[in-house]
């Protein structure tokens, strides 16, 4: 049975992470930007899991578990902030929020 090498996982994770970065820069809808951040977190999770598998060390998979917990908390607070912004501004357009810099 042919084995899968670690560099395949490296390549896949890099591609997924860059799709996420491009998505954050590409979109203006704040919710879609949140989803692109989830994409990046998941690519890193996959990489950590494959490295933990290769080094035969369970710590990597524990880190993935913690990343998932932090992502869940982040999404809860982030979506609450988005709902509050939508209530005030009637929009989730990210270019609307650049008033913060003034």
């Amino acid at each position, binding site marked *: *049975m*042919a*084995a*899968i090498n*670690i*560099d*395949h*996982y*490296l*390549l*896949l994770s*890099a591609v*997924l992470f*860059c*799709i*996420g*970065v*491009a*998505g954050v*820069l*590409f*979109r*203006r*809808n704040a*919710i*879609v930007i949140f*989803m692109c951040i*989830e*994409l990046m977190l*998941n690519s890193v*999770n*996959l990489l950590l*899991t*494959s490295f*933990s*598998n*290769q080094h*035969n060390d*369970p*710590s990597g*998979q*524990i880190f*993935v*578990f*913690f990343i*998932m*917990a*932090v*992502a*869940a*908390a*982040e*999404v*809860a607070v982030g*979506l*609450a902030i988005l*709902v*509050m912004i939508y209530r005030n501004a009637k929009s989730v*357009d990210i*270019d609307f929020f650049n008033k913060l810099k003034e």
Partner: protein
Amino acid sequence: MSQYAFYILSALSVASALMTVFNRKPVYSVLYLIFFFFTLFGHYILLNAQFLAAVHLIVYAGAIMVLFLFIIMMLNLNKEVEPNKSIVAKFAAVISGGLLMIVVVSAMKGVDAAAINQHSEIGLVETLGSVLYNKYMLPFEMVSVLFLTAIVGAVMLGKKEIK
């Protein structure tokens, strides 16, 4: 056999990630993202990380994506009214993403390409549980504090007016 499964899953995950980013309607983006999470579930199964696969499905597909769908439907955002960025900004986004990809991919040239062990025992619940409750006990407890903070923060932010 598992190699073909890996390639098919990888193609599906890249395609669904691209559809998540470049789809115009937010609800379709969410649905493609759910599909992306399912392909990652397959990857975890291929790596024999059974505990992570289960937690991934429960947390992401079960909780986080439902939250996203709920918010999009509650705010009624599924319209194509999203004003597009200028062509220049879009090109800049795609080019900078591609450049980052080139940098990362070329940085891992000459990496020691060892094979993945598909029958490793470390992804099983027994191994991970004993590590989590011995070595990582304090971080595990801290996560509960983090969740408490997140709950309080979400409730405070969600209130109509803060007295």
